Protein backbone atom coordinates (compact mmCIF):
# COMPACT_ATOMS: atom_id res chain seq x y z
CA UNK A 1 0.00 0.00 0.00
CA UNK A 2 1.24 3.47 -0.90
CA UNK A 3 1.28 6.41 1.47
CA UNK A 4 0.67 9.94 0.24
CA UNK A 5 0.06 13.44 1.43
CA UNK A 6 -2.62 15.98 0.56
CA UNK A 7 -2.77 19.60 1.55
CA UNK A 8 -4.16 22.99 0.86
CA UNK A 9 -1.63 25.54 -0.31
CA UNK A 10 -1.74 27.76 2.75
CA UNK A 11 1.26 28.89 4.73
CA UNK A 12 1.11 29.07 8.49
CA UNK A 13 4.38 30.83 9.31
CA UNK A 14 6.51 33.50 7.77
CA UNK A 15 7.84 31.35 4.94
CA UNK A 16 7.04 32.69 1.47
CA UNK A 17 4.51 30.60 -0.44
CA UNK A 18 6.89 29.45 -3.16
CA UNK A 19 9.62 28.62 -0.67
CA UNK A 20 7.21 26.67 1.52
CA UNK A 21 5.88 24.63 -1.38
CA UNK A 22 9.33 23.81 -2.74
CA UNK A 23 10.66 22.88 0.69
CA UNK A 24 7.70 20.70 1.63
CA UNK A 25 7.50 18.98 -1.75
CA UNK A 26 11.19 18.11 -1.78
CA UNK A 27 10.95 16.86 1.80
CA UNK A 28 7.94 14.69 0.97
CA UNK A 29 9.73 13.13 -1.96
CA UNK A 30 12.89 12.48 0.05
CA UNK A 31 10.77 10.92 2.79
CA UNK A 32 9.55 8.35 0.29
CA UNK A 33 5.93 9.40 0.06
CA UNK A 34 4.28 8.11 -3.10
CA UNK A 35 2.05 11.04 -3.96
CA UNK A 36 1.30 14.70 -3.37
CA UNK A 37 -2.36 15.62 -3.78
CA UNK A 38 -3.40 19.24 -4.01
CA UNK A 39 -6.58 19.94 -2.10
CA UNK A 40 -9.58 20.33 -4.36
CA UNK A 41 -11.37 23.50 -5.38
CA UNK A 42 -13.77 22.91 -2.51
CA UNK A 43 -11.03 22.67 0.12
CA UNK A 44 -9.11 25.64 -1.29
CA UNK A 45 -12.19 27.79 -0.74
CA UNK A 46 -12.92 26.41 2.71
CA UNK A 47 -9.31 26.78 3.84
CA UNK A 48 -8.83 30.19 2.16
CA UNK A 49 -5.90 28.58 0.41
CA UNK A 50 -4.06 29.34 -2.79
CA UNK A 51 -4.90 27.87 -6.14
CA UNK A 52 -4.37 24.07 -6.29
CA UNK A 53 -3.23 24.09 -9.91
CA UNK A 54 -0.57 26.75 -9.57
CA UNK A 55 0.56 25.28 -6.26
CA UNK A 56 0.89 21.86 -7.82
CA UNK A 57 2.95 23.34 -10.66
CA UNK A 58 5.49 24.42 -8.06
CA UNK A 59 5.40 20.95 -6.49
CA UNK A 60 6.07 19.52 -9.93
CA UNK A 61 9.12 21.74 -10.35
CA UNK A 62 10.51 20.89 -6.91
CA UNK A 63 10.29 17.12 -7.36
CA UNK A 64 11.12 14.47 -9.93
CA UNK A 65 9.46 11.24 -8.85
CA UNK A 66 6.46 11.73 -6.61
CA UNK A 67 3.01 11.31 -8.24
CA UNK A 68 1.14 14.60 -8.55
CA UNK A 69 -2.60 14.72 -8.01
CA UNK A 70 -5.35 17.25 -8.35
CA UNK A 71 -7.75 15.81 -5.83
CA UNK A 72 -11.01 17.61 -6.45
CA UNK A 73 -11.47 19.41 -9.71
CA UNK A 74 -14.90 20.96 -10.14
CA UNK A 75 -14.92 20.80 -13.92
CA UNK A 76 -18.22 22.59 -14.40
CA UNK A 77 -16.70 25.82 -13.08
CA UNK A 78 -14.31 26.25 -15.99
CA UNK A 79 -14.33 25.96 -19.72
CA UNK A 80 -13.12 22.56 -20.84
CA UNK A 81 -10.46 23.88 -23.18
CA UNK A 82 -9.09 26.27 -20.60
CA UNK A 83 -8.87 23.48 -18.04
CA UNK A 84 -7.36 21.07 -20.54
CA UNK A 85 -4.50 23.50 -21.16
CA UNK A 86 -3.93 24.12 -17.45
CA UNK A 87 -3.76 20.40 -16.70
CA UNK A 88 -1.60 19.58 -19.71
CA UNK A 89 0.77 22.36 -18.67
CA UNK A 90 1.24 20.98 -15.16
CA UNK A 91 1.82 17.56 -16.66
CA UNK A 92 4.45 19.06 -18.98
CA UNK A 93 6.22 20.74 -16.07
CA UNK A 94 6.03 17.51 -14.09
CA UNK A 95 7.28 15.24 -16.86
CA UNK A 96 4.07 13.23 -17.10
CA UNK A 97 3.33 12.63 -13.40
CA UNK A 98 -0.09 14.26 -13.14
CA UNK A 99 -3.25 12.43 -12.08
CA UNK A 100 -6.64 14.08 -12.15
CA UNK A 101 -9.17 13.75 -9.35
CA UNK A 102 -12.70 14.90 -10.13
CA UNK A 103 -15.27 16.13 -7.65
CA UNK A 104 -18.69 15.53 -9.19
CA UNK A 105 -20.67 16.83 -6.23
CA UNK A 106 -22.48 20.13 -6.57
CA UNK A 107 -20.02 23.05 -6.51
CA UNK A 108 -20.32 25.60 -3.71
CA UNK A 109 -22.26 28.58 -5.11
CA UNK A 110 -19.51 30.89 -3.92
CA UNK A 111 -17.19 29.44 -6.60
CA UNK A 112 -19.60 29.93 -9.47
CA UNK A 113 -19.02 32.28 -12.36
CA UNK A 114 -21.55 35.02 -11.54
CA UNK A 115 -22.22 35.68 -15.22
CA UNK A 116 -22.70 32.12 -16.44
CA UNK A 117 -25.34 29.48 -15.77
CA UNK A 118 -24.04 25.98 -15.02
CA UNK A 119 -27.32 24.07 -15.17
CA UNK A 120 -26.74 20.32 -14.95
CA UNK A 121 -23.31 20.40 -13.37
CA UNK A 122 -22.78 16.63 -13.54
CA UNK A 123 -23.64 16.58 -17.21
CA UNK A 124 -21.36 19.54 -17.81
CA UNK A 125 -18.48 17.85 -15.94
CA UNK A 126 -18.88 14.67 -17.95
CA UNK A 127 -19.12 16.55 -21.23
CA UNK A 128 -16.18 18.79 -20.35
CA UNK A 129 -14.04 15.76 -19.57
CA UNK A 130 -14.88 14.31 -22.96
CA UNK A 131 -13.84 17.56 -24.61
CA UNK A 132 -10.63 17.66 -22.58
CA UNK A 133 -9.76 14.12 -23.56
CA UNK A 134 -10.31 14.97 -27.21
CA UNK A 135 -8.01 17.98 -26.90
CA UNK A 136 -5.39 15.84 -25.14
CA UNK A 137 -5.37 13.02 -27.63
CA UNK A 138 -6.27 14.30 -31.10
CA UNK A 139 -3.91 16.33 -33.30
CA UNK A 140 -6.92 18.16 -34.70
CA UNK A 141 -9.49 17.66 -31.99
CA UNK A 142 -13.21 17.36 -32.45
CA UNK A 143 -15.89 16.95 -29.82
CA UNK A 144 -19.60 17.42 -30.07
CA UNK A 145 -21.41 17.25 -26.77
CA UNK A 146 -24.37 18.86 -25.11
CA UNK A 147 -22.33 21.70 -23.60
CA UNK A 148 -19.17 21.96 -25.67
CA UNK A 149 -18.53 21.48 -29.34
CA UNK A 150 -15.58 22.09 -31.64
CA UNK A 151 -13.93 20.75 -34.77
CA UNK A 152 -10.29 20.92 -35.77
CA UNK A 153 -8.97 22.44 -32.56
CA UNK A 154 -5.19 22.48 -32.12
CA UNK A 155 -4.39 22.16 -28.43
CA UNK A 156 -0.77 21.96 -27.35
CA UNK A 157 0.96 20.99 -25.21
CA UNK A 158 -0.70 17.65 -24.66
CA UNK A 159 -0.11 15.43 -21.64
CA UNK A 160 3.29 13.79 -21.76
CA UNK A 161 3.63 10.43 -23.45
CA UNK A 162 0.48 10.23 -25.56
CA UNK A 163 -1.64 9.49 -22.54
CA UNK A 164 -4.68 10.77 -20.73
CA UNK A 165 -3.81 11.48 -17.09
CA UNK A 166 -5.24 8.81 -14.83
CA UNK A 167 -8.65 10.02 -13.75
CA UNK A 168 -9.88 9.43 -10.21
CA UNK A 169 -13.38 10.15 -9.00
CA UNK A 170 -14.18 11.28 -5.53
CA UNK A 171 -16.61 8.74 -4.17
CA UNK A 172 -20.08 9.69 -5.28
CA UNK A 173 -23.55 8.24 -5.63
CA UNK A 174 -24.41 5.26 -7.81
CA UNK A 175 -26.48 7.48 -10.11
CA UNK A 176 -23.64 9.88 -10.76
CA UNK A 177 -21.12 7.07 -11.17
CA UNK A 178 -23.49 5.43 -13.62
CA UNK A 179 -23.63 8.58 -15.72
CA UNK A 180 -19.86 8.90 -15.64
CA UNK A 181 -19.27 5.29 -16.62
CA UNK A 182 -21.76 5.53 -19.47
CA UNK A 183 -19.68 8.34 -20.97
CA UNK A 184 -16.14 7.47 -19.99
CA UNK A 185 -16.07 3.84 -18.78
CA UNK A 186 -14.66 3.03 -15.37
CA UNK A 187 -12.42 5.60 -13.69
CA UNK A 188 -8.81 4.70 -12.97
CA UNK A 189 -9.23 5.58 -9.33
CA UNK A 190 -11.80 6.00 -6.59
CA UNK A 191 -11.10 8.58 -3.92
CA UNK A 192 -12.71 8.24 -0.53
CA UNK A 193 -11.85 11.78 0.48
CA UNK A 194 -11.75 12.75 4.14
CA UNK A 195 -13.92 9.74 4.78
CA UNK A 196 -14.48 7.81 7.95
CA UNK A 197 -14.34 4.02 7.97
CA UNK A 198 -18.07 3.61 7.46
CA UNK A 199 -18.03 6.07 4.57
CA UNK A 200 -15.11 4.26 3.01
CA UNK A 201 -16.92 0.92 3.12
CA UNK A 202 -20.13 2.46 1.79
CA UNK A 203 -18.26 4.13 -1.05
CA UNK A 204 -16.62 0.86 -1.98
CA UNK A 205 -20.01 -0.78 -2.11
CA UNK A 206 -21.21 1.85 -4.59
CA UNK A 207 -18.21 1.23 -6.79
CA UNK A 208 -18.79 -2.52 -6.77
CA UNK A 209 -22.51 -2.19 -7.33
CA UNK A 210 -22.04 -0.04 -10.44
CA UNK A 211 -18.94 -1.63 -11.93
CA UNK A 212 -19.28 -5.23 -10.83
CA UNK A 213 -16.08 -7.20 -11.34
CA UNK A 214 -14.49 -4.26 -13.14
CA UNK A 215 -14.35 -2.50 -9.79
CA UNK A 216 -11.36 -4.68 -8.94
CA UNK A 217 -9.26 -2.79 -11.48
CA UNK A 218 -10.01 0.58 -9.91
CA UNK A 219 -7.35 1.98 -7.61
CA UNK A 220 -8.73 2.77 -4.16
CA UNK A 221 -7.40 5.80 -2.31
CA UNK A 222 -8.47 6.61 1.22
CA UNK A 223 -7.78 10.14 2.36
CA UNK A 224 -8.09 10.96 6.04
CA UNK A 225 -7.38 14.06 8.12
CA UNK A 226 -3.79 13.84 9.30
CA UNK A 227 -4.95 13.49 12.90
CA UNK A 228 -6.75 10.29 11.93
CA UNK A 229 -3.78 8.74 10.15
CA UNK A 230 -2.62 6.48 13.01
CA UNK A 231 -6.07 4.98 13.48
CA UNK A 232 -6.63 4.61 9.76
CA UNK A 233 -3.27 2.91 9.27
CA UNK A 234 -4.07 0.46 12.03
CA UNK A 235 -7.58 -0.20 10.76
CA UNK A 236 -6.65 -1.04 7.20
CA UNK A 237 -5.69 -4.63 7.88
CA UNK A 238 -9.12 -5.40 9.28
CA UNK A 239 -11.23 -3.43 6.80
CA UNK A 240 -13.56 -5.36 4.51
CA UNK A 241 -12.36 -3.28 1.55
CA UNK A 242 -9.06 -2.97 -0.26
CA UNK A 243 -7.05 0.24 0.09
CA UNK A 244 -4.26 0.83 -2.42
CA UNK A 245 -3.19 4.16 -1.07
CA UNK A 246 -3.65 5.96 2.21
CA UNK A 247 -3.37 9.74 2.12
CA UNK A 248 -2.96 12.10 5.06
CA UNK A 249 -4.65 15.45 4.53
CA UNK A 250 -3.67 18.80 6.03
CA UNK A 251 -5.32 22.19 5.66
CA UNK A 252 -1.93 23.86 5.29
CA UNK A 253 1.50 23.31 3.83
CA UNK A 254 3.23 20.83 6.12
CA UNK A 255 6.38 21.40 8.11
CA UNK A 256 9.24 18.98 7.67
CA UNK A 257 8.37 17.46 11.06
CA UNK A 258 4.78 16.88 9.98
CA UNK A 259 5.98 15.16 6.82
CA UNK A 260 8.35 12.97 8.81
CA UNK A 261 5.53 12.00 11.14
CA UNK A 262 3.36 10.99 8.19
CA UNK A 263 6.17 9.08 6.48
CA UNK A 264 6.68 7.07 9.65
CA UNK A 265 3.43 5.23 8.88
CA UNK A 266 4.77 3.84 5.59
Amino acid at each position, binding site marked *: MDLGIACS*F*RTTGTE*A*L*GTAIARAAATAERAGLASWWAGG*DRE*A*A*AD*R*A*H*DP*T*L*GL*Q*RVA*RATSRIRLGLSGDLLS*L*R*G*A*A*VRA*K*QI*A*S*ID*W*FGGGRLELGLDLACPPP*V*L*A*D*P*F*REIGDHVGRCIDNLGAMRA*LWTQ*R*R*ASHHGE*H*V*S*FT*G*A*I*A*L*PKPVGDRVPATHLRATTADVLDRYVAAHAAPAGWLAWQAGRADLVAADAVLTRVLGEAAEDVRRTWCVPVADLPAAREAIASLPVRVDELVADLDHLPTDDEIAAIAAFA
Partner: protein
Amino acid sequence: MEIGLVDLFDGSTERNPDFMARFGRTAEELGFTGIWLPEHIVFFDEYTSAYPYPEAPSATDPEQVERHNRTVDGTARVEAAEDQGLLDVLQAAVEVCAATTRLRVGSSVLLLPLRNPTLLTRDLMTVAALTDGRVDLGVGVGWSAEEFAACQTEFRTRGRRCGQGIAELTRLWDDPDGIYPRDPAPLPRVLVGGHSPAALRRAATAGTGWYPWNLTPSQFAEHHATYRAHLEEAGRDRSAQHVIVGLRFTGEVAALAPVVERYLDLGADGVNISLRMGAHDYADTMRTVSDALGLAA
Protein backbone atom coordinates in the same frame (compact mmCIF):
# COMPACT_ATOMS: atom_id res chain seq x y z
CA MET B 1 11.27 53.61 -19.43
CA GLU B 2 9.93 50.09 -19.43
CA ILE B 3 10.98 47.92 -22.33
CA GLY B 4 9.44 44.49 -22.49
CA LEU B 5 9.76 41.57 -24.84
CA VAL B 6 6.77 39.68 -26.15
CA ASP B 7 7.61 36.05 -26.79
CA LEU B 8 6.18 32.65 -26.18
CA PHE B 9 6.79 29.39 -24.37
CA ASP B 10 5.16 26.69 -26.41
CA GLY B 11 5.50 23.59 -24.30
CA SER B 12 8.00 22.06 -26.70
CA THR B 13 11.06 20.05 -25.77
CA GLU B 14 13.26 22.82 -27.12
CA ARG B 15 11.70 25.49 -24.94
CA ASN B 16 11.78 23.41 -21.78
CA PRO B 17 11.88 24.81 -18.22
CA ASP B 18 15.67 25.22 -18.36
CA PHE B 19 15.26 27.25 -21.53
CA MET B 20 12.56 29.34 -19.87
CA ALA B 21 14.90 30.08 -16.98
CA ARG B 22 17.80 31.02 -19.26
CA PHE B 23 15.53 33.16 -21.41
CA GLY B 24 14.21 35.05 -18.40
CA ARG B 25 17.61 35.53 -16.78
CA THR B 26 19.11 36.77 -20.03
CA ALA B 27 16.34 39.33 -20.44
CA GLU B 28 16.77 40.43 -16.83
CA GLU B 29 20.56 40.76 -17.09
CA LEU B 30 20.24 42.78 -20.29
CA GLY B 31 17.97 45.33 -18.69
CA PHE B 32 14.57 44.43 -20.07
CA THR B 33 11.74 45.22 -17.69
CA GLY B 34 9.58 42.27 -18.51
CA ILE B 35 8.58 39.36 -20.68
CA TRP B 36 5.04 39.35 -21.96
CA LEU B 37 3.36 36.11 -22.95
CA PRO B 38 0.53 35.70 -25.45
CA GLU B 39 -2.47 33.53 -24.73
CA HIS B 40 -4.45 31.30 -26.98
CA ILE B 41 -6.28 28.29 -25.65
CA VAL B 42 -6.62 26.58 -29.03
CA PHE B 43 -5.65 27.31 -32.62
CA PHE B 44 -7.25 26.18 -35.88
CA ASP B 45 -6.06 25.48 -39.41
CA GLU B 46 -8.96 27.45 -40.84
CA TYR B 47 -10.57 30.61 -39.54
CA THR B 48 -13.49 32.69 -40.65
CA SER B 49 -12.40 35.28 -38.07
CA ALA B 50 -9.78 37.78 -39.18
CA TYR B 51 -6.72 38.52 -37.07
CA PRO B 52 -7.13 42.24 -36.28
CA TYR B 53 -3.48 43.30 -36.09
CA PRO B 54 -1.80 42.05 -39.29
CA GLU B 55 -0.05 45.35 -39.96
CA ALA B 56 2.70 46.84 -37.84
CA PRO B 57 4.54 50.15 -38.01
CA SER B 58 7.39 50.04 -40.50
CA ALA B 59 10.90 50.13 -39.10
CA THR B 60 12.01 52.69 -41.67
CA ASP B 61 8.97 54.93 -41.31
CA PRO B 62 6.79 54.03 -38.33
CA GLU B 63 3.98 56.25 -39.61
CA GLN B 64 3.60 53.71 -42.41
CA VAL B 65 2.45 50.17 -41.77
CA GLU B 66 3.70 46.93 -43.25
CA ARG B 67 1.63 43.79 -43.42
CA HIS B 68 3.60 40.85 -42.08
CA ASN B 69 0.86 38.33 -41.45
CA ARG B 70 -0.31 35.82 -44.01
CA THR B 71 -3.62 36.46 -45.72
CA VAL B 72 -5.89 33.67 -46.90
CA ASP B 73 -8.85 34.50 -49.14
CA GLY B 74 -8.55 38.10 -48.08
CA THR B 75 -8.61 37.27 -44.37
CA ALA B 76 -5.57 38.04 -42.22
CA ARG B 77 -4.26 35.10 -40.21
CA VAL B 78 -2.63 34.99 -36.82
CA GLU B 79 1.12 34.41 -36.86
CA ALA B 80 1.38 30.83 -35.63
CA ALA B 81 3.14 27.60 -36.45
CA GLU B 82 1.25 24.70 -38.00
CA ASP B 83 1.24 22.92 -34.65
CA GLN B 84 1.41 25.91 -32.36
CA GLY B 85 1.50 25.29 -28.63
CA LEU B 86 1.33 27.69 -25.73
CA LEU B 87 1.74 26.81 -22.09
CA ASP B 88 -0.86 28.04 -19.65
CA VAL B 89 0.08 31.69 -19.36
CA LEU B 90 -0.08 31.91 -15.56
CA GLN B 91 1.99 28.77 -15.00
CA ALA B 92 4.56 30.06 -17.48
CA ALA B 93 4.64 33.42 -15.68
CA VAL B 94 5.24 31.75 -12.33
CA GLU B 95 7.98 29.59 -13.81
CA VAL B 96 9.90 32.52 -15.32
CA CYS B 97 9.57 34.58 -12.14
CA ALA B 98 10.91 31.67 -10.09
CA ALA B 99 14.09 31.81 -12.16
CA THR B 100 14.54 35.59 -11.90
CA THR B 101 14.56 38.25 -9.24
CA ARG B 102 13.47 41.54 -10.83
CA LEU B 103 11.98 40.69 -14.19
CA ARG B 104 8.25 41.28 -14.55
CA VAL B 105 6.08 38.89 -16.52
CA GLY B 106 2.86 39.96 -18.19
CA SER B 107 0.07 38.44 -20.21
CA SER B 108 -0.18 39.75 -23.75
CA VAL B 109 -3.06 39.26 -23.45
CA LEU B 110 -5.09 36.94 -21.22
CA LEU B 111 -8.48 36.24 -22.77
CA LEU B 112 -10.51 37.37 -19.80
CA PRO B 113 -13.99 36.50 -21.14
CA LEU B 114 -12.98 32.82 -21.19
CA ARG B 115 -12.31 32.73 -17.46
CA ASN B 116 -14.48 32.31 -14.39
CA PRO B 117 -13.63 35.55 -12.56
CA THR B 118 -14.25 33.93 -9.19
CA LEU B 119 -11.51 31.39 -9.80
CA LEU B 120 -9.28 33.77 -11.74
CA THR B 121 -9.15 35.99 -8.67
CA ARG B 122 -7.70 33.12 -6.65
CA ASP B 123 -5.34 32.23 -9.49
CA LEU B 124 -3.99 35.76 -9.60
CA MET B 125 -3.63 35.99 -5.82
CA THR B 126 -1.52 32.85 -6.02
CA VAL B 127 0.51 34.21 -8.90
CA ALA B 128 1.07 37.46 -7.00
CA ALA B 129 2.24 35.52 -3.95
CA LEU B 130 4.53 33.23 -5.94
CA THR B 131 6.10 36.08 -7.91
CA ASP B 132 6.29 38.72 -5.21
CA GLY B 133 3.94 40.87 -7.24
CA ARG B 134 5.96 40.81 -10.45
CA VAL B 135 3.07 39.96 -12.77
CA ASP B 136 1.09 42.35 -14.96
CA LEU B 137 -2.27 41.36 -16.31
CA GLY B 138 -2.84 42.36 -19.89
CA VAL B 139 -6.41 41.43 -20.76
CA GLY B 140 -8.26 41.32 -24.03
CA VAL B 141 -11.41 40.13 -25.70
CA GLY B 142 -9.80 38.01 -28.40
CA TRP B 143 -10.64 37.96 -32.06
CA SER B 144 -11.31 34.30 -32.90
CA ALA B 145 -14.95 33.27 -32.85
CA GLU B 146 -13.76 29.70 -33.36
CA GLU B 147 -11.71 29.81 -30.17
CA PHE B 148 -14.56 31.31 -28.17
CA ALA B 149 -16.96 28.63 -29.38
CA ALA B 150 -14.51 25.91 -28.36
CA CYS B 151 -14.25 27.57 -24.96
CA GLN B 152 -18.02 27.65 -24.44
CA THR B 153 -18.14 31.45 -24.43
CA GLU B 154 -20.39 33.67 -26.52
CA PHE B 155 -18.28 35.71 -28.93
CA ARG B 156 -20.78 38.52 -29.47
CA THR B 157 -20.88 39.57 -25.83
CA ARG B 158 -17.20 39.11 -25.03
CA GLY B 159 -16.61 42.83 -24.49
CA ARG B 160 -19.30 43.07 -21.86
CA ARG B 161 -18.02 39.92 -20.21
CA CYS B 162 -14.51 41.38 -20.15
CA GLY B 163 -15.73 44.51 -18.38
CA GLN B 164 -17.71 42.42 -15.92
CA GLY B 165 -14.66 40.26 -15.31
CA ILE B 166 -12.41 43.20 -14.48
CA ALA B 167 -15.03 44.69 -12.17
CA GLU B 168 -15.56 41.35 -10.42
CA LEU B 169 -11.84 40.75 -10.07
CA THR B 170 -11.37 44.17 -8.51
CA ARG B 171 -14.32 43.69 -6.14
CA LEU B 172 -13.34 40.21 -5.01
CA TRP B 173 -9.73 41.17 -4.40
CA ASP B 174 -10.79 43.31 -1.48
CA ASP B 175 -13.63 41.08 -0.27
CA PRO B 176 -12.97 40.63 3.45
CA ASP B 177 -15.41 37.73 3.74
CA GLY B 178 -14.09 35.93 0.73
CA ILE B 179 -12.90 32.47 0.06
CA TYR B 180 -9.46 33.72 -0.80
CA PRO B 181 -6.09 33.73 0.90
CA ARG B 182 -5.86 36.34 3.60
CA ASP B 183 -3.75 39.46 3.07
CA PRO B 184 -3.20 39.08 -0.67
CA ALA B 185 -0.52 41.05 -2.46
CA PRO B 186 -1.82 44.09 -4.34
CA LEU B 187 -3.98 43.48 -7.40
CA PRO B 188 -1.72 43.27 -10.48
CA ARG B 189 -1.87 46.10 -12.97
CA VAL B 190 -4.79 45.39 -15.28
CA LEU B 191 -3.96 46.70 -18.75
CA VAL B 192 -6.80 46.52 -21.23
CA GLY B 193 -5.70 45.58 -24.73
CA GLY B 194 -6.99 47.03 -27.98
CA HIS B 195 -7.97 50.43 -29.30
CA SER B 196 -11.63 50.07 -30.26
CA PRO B 197 -13.91 52.68 -28.69
CA ALA B 198 -15.17 50.08 -26.25
CA ALA B 199 -11.65 48.95 -25.33
CA LEU B 200 -10.50 52.52 -24.71
CA ARG B 201 -13.48 53.20 -22.49
CA ARG B 202 -13.01 49.91 -20.65
CA ALA B 203 -9.33 50.65 -20.10
CA ALA B 204 -10.08 54.08 -18.71
CA THR B 205 -12.99 53.10 -16.50
CA ALA B 206 -12.30 49.53 -15.37
CA GLY B 207 -8.60 48.82 -15.86
CA THR B 208 -5.50 50.38 -14.38
CA GLY B 209 -3.83 50.75 -17.74
CA TRP B 210 -4.04 50.48 -21.50
CA TYR B 211 -2.17 48.15 -23.83
CA PRO B 212 -2.61 49.04 -27.53
CA TRP B 213 -1.02 46.88 -30.21
CA ASN B 214 0.61 47.75 -33.56
CA LEU B 215 -0.49 51.40 -33.67
CA THR B 216 1.57 53.92 -35.59
CA PRO B 217 2.76 56.84 -33.45
CA SER B 218 0.06 59.07 -34.89
CA GLN B 219 -2.62 56.49 -34.23
CA PHE B 220 -1.30 56.04 -30.72
CA ALA B 221 -1.40 59.79 -30.09
CA GLU B 222 -4.99 59.98 -31.29
CA HIS B 223 -6.24 57.05 -29.22
CA HIS B 224 -4.19 58.09 -26.22
CA ALA B 225 -6.00 61.43 -26.27
CA THR B 226 -9.33 59.61 -26.28
CA TYR B 227 -8.15 57.37 -23.45
CA ARG B 228 -7.10 60.40 -21.40
CA ALA B 229 -10.46 62.05 -22.04
CA HIS B 230 -12.25 58.94 -20.76
CA LEU B 231 -10.03 58.96 -17.69
CA GLU B 232 -10.88 62.56 -17.02
CA GLU B 233 -14.60 61.88 -17.40
CA ALA B 234 -14.25 59.05 -14.91
CA GLY B 235 -12.37 61.25 -12.48
CA ARG B 236 -9.24 59.15 -12.74
CA ASP B 237 -5.70 60.41 -12.86
CA ARG B 238 -3.56 59.46 -15.85
CA SER B 239 -0.46 59.37 -13.67
CA ALA B 240 -1.99 56.51 -11.68
CA GLN B 241 -2.52 54.50 -14.86
CA HIS B 242 -0.04 52.59 -16.96
CA VAL B 243 0.19 52.64 -20.74
CA ILE B 244 2.32 50.11 -22.57
CA VAL B 245 2.56 50.22 -26.35
CA GLY B 246 3.04 46.83 -27.97
CA LEU B 247 4.26 46.22 -31.47
CA ARG B 248 5.51 43.49 -33.73
CA PHE B 249 8.90 44.61 -35.03
CA THR B 250 10.46 42.99 -38.08
CA GLY B 251 12.99 45.60 -39.23
CA GLU B 252 16.64 46.21 -38.50
CA VAL B 253 17.29 46.57 -34.79
CA ALA B 254 19.25 49.75 -35.49
CA ALA B 255 15.95 51.39 -36.46
CA LEU B 256 14.27 50.44 -33.21
CA ALA B 257 15.52 53.19 -30.90
CA PRO B 258 13.82 56.13 -32.65
CA VAL B 259 10.58 54.17 -32.90
CA VAL B 260 10.60 53.46 -29.18
CA GLU B 261 11.55 57.04 -28.39
CA ARG B 262 8.63 58.29 -30.44
CA TYR B 263 6.08 56.31 -28.40
CA LEU B 264 7.67 57.39 -25.13
CA ASP B 265 7.64 61.02 -26.24
CA LEU B 266 3.94 60.67 -26.98
CA GLY B 267 3.23 59.56 -23.44
CA ALA B 268 3.65 55.80 -23.32
CA ASP B 269 5.08 54.49 -20.05
CA GLY B 270 6.69 51.57 -21.80
CA VAL B 271 7.04 49.68 -25.05
CA ASN B 272 6.71 45.95 -25.57
CA ILE B 273 8.46 44.55 -28.61
CA SER B 274 7.62 41.27 -30.30
CA LEU B 275 10.64 39.96 -32.19
CA ARG B 276 9.72 36.26 -32.33
CA MET B 277 13.20 35.25 -31.30
CA GLY B 278 14.64 31.86 -32.12
CA ALA B 279 15.50 29.36 -29.42
CA HIS B 280 19.15 29.39 -30.46
CA ASP B 281 19.77 33.05 -31.20
CA TYR B 282 17.55 34.79 -28.67
CA ALA B 283 20.46 35.83 -26.45
CA ASP B 284 22.26 37.53 -29.33
CA THR B 285 19.06 39.26 -30.40
CA MET B 286 18.31 40.43 -26.88
CA ARG B 287 21.86 41.75 -26.52
CA THR B 288 21.62 43.65 -29.80
CA VAL B 289 18.30 45.22 -28.81
CA SER B 290 19.54 46.01 -25.32
CA ASP B 291 22.60 47.73 -26.77
CA ALA B 292 20.51 49.63 -29.31
CA LEU B 293 18.19 50.93 -26.59
CA GLY B 294 20.88 51.42 -23.96
CA LEU B 295 19.11 49.18 -21.47
CA ALA B 296 21.98 47.58 -19.64
CA ALA B 297 23.87 50.81 -19.08
